[in-house]
């Protein structure tokens, strides 16, 4: 039976096209030779190759995590290409020399790569498969001492910073996918905000997977020096393929004394079709280290895409009085699976964390919140507040909450609240009887449900996110 509510969730994925562009693809398979080849292609220093090889050797001894509430066929890691780059005609000096086909791709995706056409005040690093295509506003940022470039460029031009911080927040042995990423990562964004600097614009990275048989393994590193501030946003899309692509990223944030990093994600990887065929496996490790006193790291994520999402952006609250925040909307539809949440590790005194998670499940999807709040023995006066709300649309989906709380200090205060609600026929009828159609009704209910999270997104992206959720849910309520 196709009720208006059902008819509403099923709008096609808008970004499912493939760009026809000649790519330099490394043959499938993973070995030390492949890693050496990637490292050579990127002209990397010896220490970085060693970092990769040591991670690879660790990875060989590790097993895939089996505890997440998701299921998928075993991934054949030898059947993935670990490097794919659009072939440059020659070395690029400016955006004018970027392949016009690539520029058209990003135009179609609504990503502003021409500075003059940009959203006011947002600098963008654009990543296509394994490499960064362009970064906008570099000069303007450089005037303030802000470094914003692709990870590969940072390795070439700021090796001392990369070497100092790489792997300090997410060690290469952290988990199976972090180890894999550390071995084969290809590109990503690098941001460095100097002391006493408020980054003058929003920094943003747009990730695009284009090649069917390649994985994307990006690496992002953001460092905020003492008393600095930066707001960073990432967006992601991928073409529609019948096969699954692996996306295993690592993001590391470091905030020193009195620094603040605000990291927002709008994730819209291809989710597979309505029967669960195809889609991205999004297995990501993101962590922020509040290293300095009074530092603050805030994660805001809107997760709507991917066949499977497995990510727990967390904060290690090392500095006294440091603050970690996590605001999340995870929406799953059809056969999508999401196991996502956060980890808040309180080490320093008077550290505070706040978790607001909103899960929306529709279709046959399964949506789990998994979160860890850990209060260390020395975290005097630590406080945590968690709120996990689930909303079900239709009768065939599932929602779960797995909160883990470990407290080793008796002065800590930890609060956890959870709720579950359902959009049903009666709620839709109430709107209808006031003349409001099902599309607007669902959008209003969902936006009401997610308001607390959307309020934490930068303004332009809050509008985007609102629209995106509306699109994803078209036709699902019934």
């Amino acid at each position: 039976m196709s009720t208006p509510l059902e008819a509403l969730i099923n709008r096609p994925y808008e970004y499912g096209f493939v760009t026809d562009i000649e790519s330099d693809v490394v043959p499938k398979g993973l070995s030390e030779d492949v890693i050496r080849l990637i490292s050579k292609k990127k002209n990397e220093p010896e220490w970085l190759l060693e970092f990769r090889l040591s991670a690879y050797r660790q990875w060989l001894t590790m097993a895939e995590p089996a505890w997440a509430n998701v299921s998928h066929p075993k991934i054949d890691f030898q059947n993935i290409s670990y490097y794919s780059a659009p072939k440059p005609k020659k070395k690029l000096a400016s955006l004018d020399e970027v392949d016009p086909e690539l520029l058209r791709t990003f135009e179609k995706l609504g990503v502003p790569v021409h500075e003059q056409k940009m959203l006011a005040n947002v600098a963008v690093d654009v990543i296509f498969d394994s490499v960064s295509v362009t970064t906008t506003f570099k000069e303007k940022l450089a005037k303030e001492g802000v470094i914003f470039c692709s990870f590969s460029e940072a390795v070439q031009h700021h090796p001392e910073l990369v070497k100092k911080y790489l792997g300090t927040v997410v060690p290469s042995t952290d988990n199976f996918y972090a180890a894999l990423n550390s071995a084969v990562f290809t590109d990503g964004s690098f941001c460095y905000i100097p002391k006493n600097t408020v980054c003058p614009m929003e920094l943003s990275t747009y990730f695009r997977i284009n090649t069917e048989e390649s994985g994307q393994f990006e690496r992002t590193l953001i460092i905020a020096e003492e008393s600095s501030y930066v707001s960073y946003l990432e967006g992601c899309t991928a073409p529609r393929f019948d096969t699954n692509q692996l996306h295993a990223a690592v993001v590391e944030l470091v905030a020193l004394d009195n620094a603040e990093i605000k990291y927002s994600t709008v994730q819209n990887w291809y989710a597979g079709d309505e029967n669960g065929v195809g889609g991205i496996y999004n297995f990501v490790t993101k962590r922020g280290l509040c290293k300095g006193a009074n530092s603050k790291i805030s994660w805001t994520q809107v997760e709507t895409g991917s066949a499977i999402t497995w990510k727990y952006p967390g904060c290690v609250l090392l500095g006294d009085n440091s603050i970690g925040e996590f605001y999340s909307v995870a929406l799953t539809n059809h056969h999508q699976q999401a196991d996502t949440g956060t980890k808040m590790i309180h080490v320093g005194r008077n550290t505070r964390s706040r978790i607001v998670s909103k899960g929306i499940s529709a279709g046959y999807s399964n949506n789990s919140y998994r979160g860890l709040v850990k209060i260390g023995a020395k975290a005097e006066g630590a406080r945590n507040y968690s709120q996990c709300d689930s909303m079900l649309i239709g009768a065939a989906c599932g929602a779960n909450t797995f909160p883990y709380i470990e407290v080793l200090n008796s002065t800590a205060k930890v609060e956890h609240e959870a709720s579950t609600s359902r959009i049903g026929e009666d709620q839709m009828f109430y709107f209808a009887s006031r003349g409001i159609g099902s599309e607007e009704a669902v959008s209003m209910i969902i936006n009401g449900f997610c308001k607390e999270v959307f309020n934490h997104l930068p303004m332009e992206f809050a509008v985007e996110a609102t629209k995106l959720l509306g699109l994803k849910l078209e036709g699902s309520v019934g």
Partner: protein
Amino acid sequence: MISSNSRVILEVRDLCASIGGIEILKGVNLTVRSGEVHAIMGPNGSGKSTFSKVLAGHPGYTVTRGEVIYNGKNLLDLPAEERAREGVFLAFQYPIEIPGVSNSSFLRLAYNTMQAHRGGEELDPLEFDDFIREKCKLVEMDPGFLDRSVNEGFSGGEKKRNEILQMAVLEPKLSILDETDSGLDIDALRIVAGGVNKLMTPDNAVIMVTHYQRLLNYITPDFVHVMRSGRILKTGGRELALELEARGYDWVRAEAAA
């Protein structure tokens, strides 16, 4: 309030409807003219609430026979939201809570949808604020309620008042009040009924579904219908409600069977 030039707003003929294969309405007939107030009374399970929902277009019910002509249109052809836009309003017995959606943005969306349909002017949030504050006075509602989530944490009486506020905003042609009096104390009943009375015009009509005649002390019906087992068994004037209050419902069935 019946004037000489009153016209038929609603014509229900032999309406049968079921839910989950169980027939609830078994041939309802009813004619409502502009300016009229109809009360539908009857014991629990007689089909009163089902009748209200079927008129408003609840998708859970299947109409198996009969027709409903509303302002010359076949109402049963229209989905619920179009019925609402055409001026059919249902005040819910149990209004739904909508967390996170402010009452004012909900009301404004509903109002602007209606205005777009009628070809009227839509209001921006500031203009709407002036408009809605006037309407609040009608049901003696504190404008503070506008900033709260729709019906969330409202008391029973506040929810019912909020329904009548919506009625005031949407200015329907045909209002169906489904047990609007249930759960109200005397003061709230007086306020809610006062609101409805102020909204009555020679051009619109009200159908009130109620168990008790006490609501009819505040809103005077032109007709009282007794519903039982999915049919209207008896129709009378104001005095019928008093008789029901005194004698109960059983005699109506006995009389109808005779």
